[in-house]
């Protein structure tokens, strides 16, 4: 077993060596511009790009013509939300999203608010789930766009995008899904799901960074106002020379994910459950987000009375992330965990573990042992743990507040 152990696959993944191998010739040998129509260099590049496009479409059971290449999911989300809001603004100016979305969505929504749109941010329950009745109540005659994650990046919960899609379609509302964390983990059949726009990324699924895609439905046709101009590439929706090698990598990554999903998903779930079982043996731990509606590879836990960043520091041999905000200037803990109603203390004490293609059972067992040992050590250092053991009522303690 090699240290450090990588358990942060929800942040990014290594490029699969099989993917890297496919990419290399397109950097050196087949370097043509896929937009060059007059020679074989261009034709070769174009063919590779179109093959990759078909791989993305195969993953989602959609038409290759519905796939637009972007620089990554952040750009896809920006193009989807701004593009649709701008195009359909004559119908209404009301947009809906959820508080626990990724910053790519929330910050884009803030920008649209600045431009005069009105945005409703829906609350979630204590498990991180959206109550569909809450969603229904937020719909208005002037609602033109709804944006929602399929799988949450921090807590891994799965939202019911199928029902939300049906309701949006009935009302003629454009529905965008951020599916970044779902690719290769949940089946997505766009022939049945009523999704109009969908953002995906390459680097979360063993492809290279710097490339992503946006699905734009053709039947019924969804229109977008372009956000990047110059050259009219990608049917005018996203200009710019296509990075052939990146696209080839993303295509191969999606092909492998599609072929291996049936075996890989249960394996990831077994590893995650093994991790969960081990860590649950520690006293005063809390699982953040629904266990029932959860993606197979992720686990978010709070270790009460231990601050998240100090725990990460104690387990430097394991790469994980924390909802603690100690590293950020704001000192605000994770907004996602706060949206679940978690106390600031528990949010500060949270760690996200995400297993992936190269995770082994041995690594999981090592992690459990190390976390147990370090949580014990840090609690010995913690005045809060001491107070807990002395049965001090924390509600009676008057802390200094902000």
């Amino acid at each position, binding site marked *: 077993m090699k240290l450090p152990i990588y358990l942060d696959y929800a942040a990014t993944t290594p490029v699969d060596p099989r993917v890297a191998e496919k990419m290399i010739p397109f950097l050196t040998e087949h370097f043509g511009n896929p937009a060059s129509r007059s020679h074989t260099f261009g034709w070769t590049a174009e063919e590779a790009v179109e093959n990759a496009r078909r791989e993305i479409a195969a993953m989602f059971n959609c038409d290759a013509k519905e796939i637009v290449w972007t620089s990554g999911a952040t750009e896809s989300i920006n193009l989807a939300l701004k593009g649709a809001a701008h195009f359909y603004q004559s119908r209404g100016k009301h947009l809906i999203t959820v508080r626990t979305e990724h910053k790519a969505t929330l910050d884009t929504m803030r920008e649209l608010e600045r431009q005069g749109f009105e945005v409703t941010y829906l609350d979630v329950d204590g498990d991180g789930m959206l109550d569909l009745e809450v969603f229904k109540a937020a719909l208005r005659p002037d609602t033109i766009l709804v944006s929602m994650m399929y799988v949450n990046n921090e807590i891994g919960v799965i939202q019911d995008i199928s029902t939300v899609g049906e309701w949006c379609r009935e009302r003629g509302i454009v529905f965008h899904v951020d599916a970044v964390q779902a690719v290769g983990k949940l089946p997505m059949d766009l022939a049945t799901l009523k999704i109009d726009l969908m953002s995906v990324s390459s680097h979360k699924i063993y492809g290279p960074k710097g490339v992503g895609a946006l699905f734009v439905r053709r039947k019924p046709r969804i229109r977008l106002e372009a956000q990047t101009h110059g050259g009219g590439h990608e049917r005018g929706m996203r200009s710019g020379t296509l990075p052939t090698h990146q696209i080839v990598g993303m295509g191969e990554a999606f092909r492998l994910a599609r072929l291996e999903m049936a075996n890989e998903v249960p394996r990831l779930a077994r590893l995650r459950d093994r991790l969960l079982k081990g860590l649950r043996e520690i006293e005063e731990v809390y699982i953040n987000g629904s266990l029932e509606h959860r993606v197979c590879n992720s686990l978010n836990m709070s270790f009460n*009375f*231990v*601050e998240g*960043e*100090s725990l990460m*520091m104690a387990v430097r041999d394991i790469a994980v992330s924390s909802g*603690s*905000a*100690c*590293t*950020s*200037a704001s*000192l605000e*803990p994770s907004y996602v965990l706060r949206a679940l109603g978690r*106390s*600031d*203390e528990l949010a*500060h004490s949270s760690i996200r573990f995400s297993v992936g293609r190269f995770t082994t059972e041995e690594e999981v067992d090592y992690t459990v042992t190390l976390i147990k040992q370090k949580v014990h050590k840090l609690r*010995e*250092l*913690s*005045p*809060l*743990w*001491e*107070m807990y053991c002395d049965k*001090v009522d*924390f509600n*009676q*303690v*008057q*802390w*200094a*507040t*902000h």
Partner: protein
Amino acid sequence: MAYSEKVLEHYENPRNVGSFDKKERDVGTGMVGAPACGDVMKLQIRVGKDGVIEDARFKTYGCGSAIASSSLVTEWVKGKTLDEAMAIKNSQIAEELALPPVKIHCSILAEDAIRAAIADYKAKSEAKSGAQGHEETAEATACAPPTGVSRTTS
């Protein structure tokens, strides 16, 4: 983020971890910060008859820099008079541990903890003449930046 070697060293081998009995008369206890801010420091000093700090203990809930800051100050206050200990500045702590700007609040908290422990000890000594049991109090400031002072009772 990368930690300085000194932060790592204190974090790996924290000095003077533990607790004194806070009811003892020669012990001063300061508890600062709040769990909601992600930092709580408890610093205790044992003061000799000559007014010199003989020993110190700490427990800290917080990031590595907060743990290192409190570990460091337990070393620094030992052998100092109360006035000398009061003169320890957060900037000295930050400099010694090479704290980055985002972690300066950890050193501020450590300075506050010293002051709170000394204030608690002094309040106890003054109450001694009345020979009454003293309700333990300590000053505490908000996590960052310190904006106010309130009482912490544990």
